[in-house]
């Protein structure tokens, strides 16, 4: 994209020249508008941050207590160099936002990561209309098709009960920010106690402080008697799946929660007992429906199956193009 365009991708990230701000930059810049607190979108060392108020606790946890952060309510507008900016729920994780930019009658929306299934741990996705829509494409292939989350939670609770009947510890691997809280909110706390890895517990505190209701959880490290784990649920990030960590759980059953678990080969590669298909991103249908409903004439497609999504949109007469960013989307690299 040329330098004259309203939005451009520079070495530092997606840049709005007239407004003089970046969206989720991957280098330290003067002013960053942040869509959400995941590490590939919220990077440290920028001078000023602007983000949704719901994400404030998470951003301070991840970037440091003393970052210069201007929180905004969803829907609130701010003028940056005469460009109107507002944030709208993206439904991805707590505080995730789509960035809506309006200038001289034109509207751009940068989605960040999003999902349009409702979720009790964050504000529901808001469908916006715009002229140019910048969308992710993490699960942009028709093989990705999510079942309703209630079904998945029922499966997870069923798996937990079955493990419990054999006095096994259920170790559920889920990304520590977002996925873990969503899963915990879906657990049936009547089955047994829920323990967490430290990285998950920290984020739980942020969620609770933001007013999200989660069942009671306890940090694994705070438990002295290992017998307490038999029949219990442990929620830990995938990085904790090491012998050193899981050794403390007698006879653990392991499961992984991710949209990637839709694919059998990836499930087998993970070497877990179960893979639950649960994602913080849209499935194919959600993605294409959202793009169509945005009524955008121009669609910029970032991280994921962008080549495929672009071709599909072009065949539907949309002006679509691939945009290279440094946001991650692969199974081995991201929080999906």
């Amino acid at each position, binding site marked *: 994209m040329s330098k004259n365009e309203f939005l451009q991708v520079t070495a530092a990230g997606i840049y709005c020249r007239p407004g003089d701000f970046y969206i989720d930059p991957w280098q330290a810049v003067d002013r960053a508008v942040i869509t959400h607190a995941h590490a590939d979108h919220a990077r440290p060392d920028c001078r000023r941050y602007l983000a949704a108020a719901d994400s404030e606790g998470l951003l301070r946890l991840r970037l440091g207590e003393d970052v210069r952060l201007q929180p905004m309510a969803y829907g609130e507008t701010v003028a940056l160099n005469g460009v109107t900016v507002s944030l709208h729920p993206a439904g991805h994780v707590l505080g995730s936002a789509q960035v809506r930019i309006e200038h001289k009658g034109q509207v751009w929306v940068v989605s960040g990561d999003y999902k349009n299934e409702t979720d009790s741990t964050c504000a529901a996705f808001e469908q916006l209309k715009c002229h140019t829509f910048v969308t992710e494409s993490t699960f942009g292939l028709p093989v990705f098709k999510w079942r309703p989350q209630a079904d998945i939670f029922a499966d997870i609770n069923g798996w937990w009960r079955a493990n419990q009947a054999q006095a096994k510890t259920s170790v559920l691997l889920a990304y520590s920010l977002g996925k873990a809280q969503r899963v915990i909110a879906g657990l049936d706390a009547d089955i047994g106690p829920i323990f967490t890895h430290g990285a998950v517990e920290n984020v739980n505190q942020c969620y609770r402080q933001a007013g999200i209701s989660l069942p009671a959880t306890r940090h694994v490290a705070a438990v002295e008697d290992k017998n307490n784990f038999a029949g219990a649920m442990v929620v830990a990030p995938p990085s904790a799946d090491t012998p050193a960590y899981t050794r403390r759980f007698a006879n653990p059953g392991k499961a992984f929660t991710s949209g990637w678990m839709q*694919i059998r080969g990836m499930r087998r*590669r993970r070497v877990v007992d179960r893979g639950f298909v649960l994602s913080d991103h849209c499935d194919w249908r959600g993605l294409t429906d959202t793009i169509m409903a945005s009524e955008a004439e121009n669609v910029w497609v970032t991280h994921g199956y962008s080549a495929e999504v672009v*071709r599909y949109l072009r065949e539907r007469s949309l002006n679509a193009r691939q945009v290279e960013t440094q946001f991650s989307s692969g199974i081995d690299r991201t929080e999906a």
Partner: protein
Amino acid sequence: MKLFSKLYTALDETTRTNVKVQALVDYFQQAPPEDAVWAIHFLIGRKPRQVVPTRKLKEWAAQLAGIPDWLFDASYEVVGDLAETITLVLPLSNRTQNRPLHVWVEDILLPLRGKDEAVQQRAITDAWQQLDNPQRFVCNKLITGAFRVGVSQRLVTRALSQVSGIDAAVIAHRLMGEWTPDAETYHQILSTDTRDTDISRPYPFYLAYPLDQDVTDLGAIEDWQAEWKWDGIRAQVIKREDRVFIWSRGEELVTDKFPEIVQAAQRLPDGTALDGEILAWQNEQPLNFSVLQRRIGRKNIGTKLLKEVPVVLMAYDILEVHGNDVRDRSLAQRFKDLTRILAALPQEGILNISPVAAGSWLQLGEARAQARSRGVEGLMLKRLSSPYRVGRRRGDWWKWKVDPLTIDAVLLYAQPGHGRRSGLYTDYTFAVWDADKLVPFAKAYSGLTDAEIRRVDRFVRTHTLERFGPVRSVDPELVFEIAFEDIRRSSRHKSGIAVRFPRILRWRTDKKIQDADSLQTLKSLLTAA
């Protein structure tokens, strides 16, 4: 088919052998015989001829899913499994039929062969719409035939043995050869009546492991027999009730391909089963395996081919003598039996005893190093006291192959793998230097660790030059040491050579592409081989 798809899911979800066997036992205890026999058939890797071409399946699935063909292909590239891709792109079904497995196979799928395309399409798309995802997936597997689910014949045998109380070796034997998947066969497989009626039935082959220790650790040379390891077709030649049957190791009946062996074997006493290697042979020397392949590839073996590719059997074991199963006897005893029986035949040069190599471990080591010039792959080491076992076992039989040929080559193209490696770039094409150009000469898929595969995958994604469908060309940067067994000239390959069993020996992170080998060096191996 619900029960069978449940079994498939259970097998697929675990890597633990005991859990797999238990899942199989549970299944066989519940499934009716007419279903169970089909389950065995598929699980041990047999497949009926495909009833519908793969291309058509893709087309119909894309049509039913309302997506363009290219998007189906792009999805397949990521999923790495056709049956699964079809299952996932189709709209979820809200009906679920539960017809028995044998009804699906016998009444719905198999009769489709040769039918009008419209009839086939209706039947298959109906099936898709009637099944939930796990059953739909299994149904697709039945159609496409690629049924790998990490279950070996041995596990199925073990489970059947547990269910029936019949010895696993007896079950393994009964699963050999040709049988019709019906209820009667199932009863025969589990029958306590040990008299078997099928006169063609071969014995399960005993397979050796590659030697992974110092040869002198095997103990005294006097306890061992060393034989040349031939590069031919492992086969059992069986003569019973005046008829000859030749079985390949893949349990294919290949009798028709080797009429001269059949003729010679007619003179064997009734109730004989020989184990050995079929080789293309001329002037006291084995011919290259590629020559022998011409005999397998043809439907009709004419006189011209018989003359151009003369074959012999190098027999090294005997499993049945005068109708008695002698697999429990020692190798020393069996070899005596073999020698006695073959020596009694007129010497025509077709049925031979595979020669034994003699000498100390040191001398055998020297003989092994000369293997290539003799046209063999190395030596087989067999304990003289060993019985003839079932399947691949460690301890008594070892293959001691000559070290492979190796060359340093540059990664040029990559393509996503299948199964456990789906969505990862794991299938590579390697090149060597021809002056200042890199010429591809081999594809290799195996040899890297999971961690290395992930690193190469990342490299491929970030260093793609061009895409050709699923294939990506990459910046020539990475050097690998490639090993292979054999090299020969080939007019079909751009490089002018073809290598056999190429695989990655190691990733040479210490080398730059300038350090990779040249086509000239590669060709110089032609004489070595």
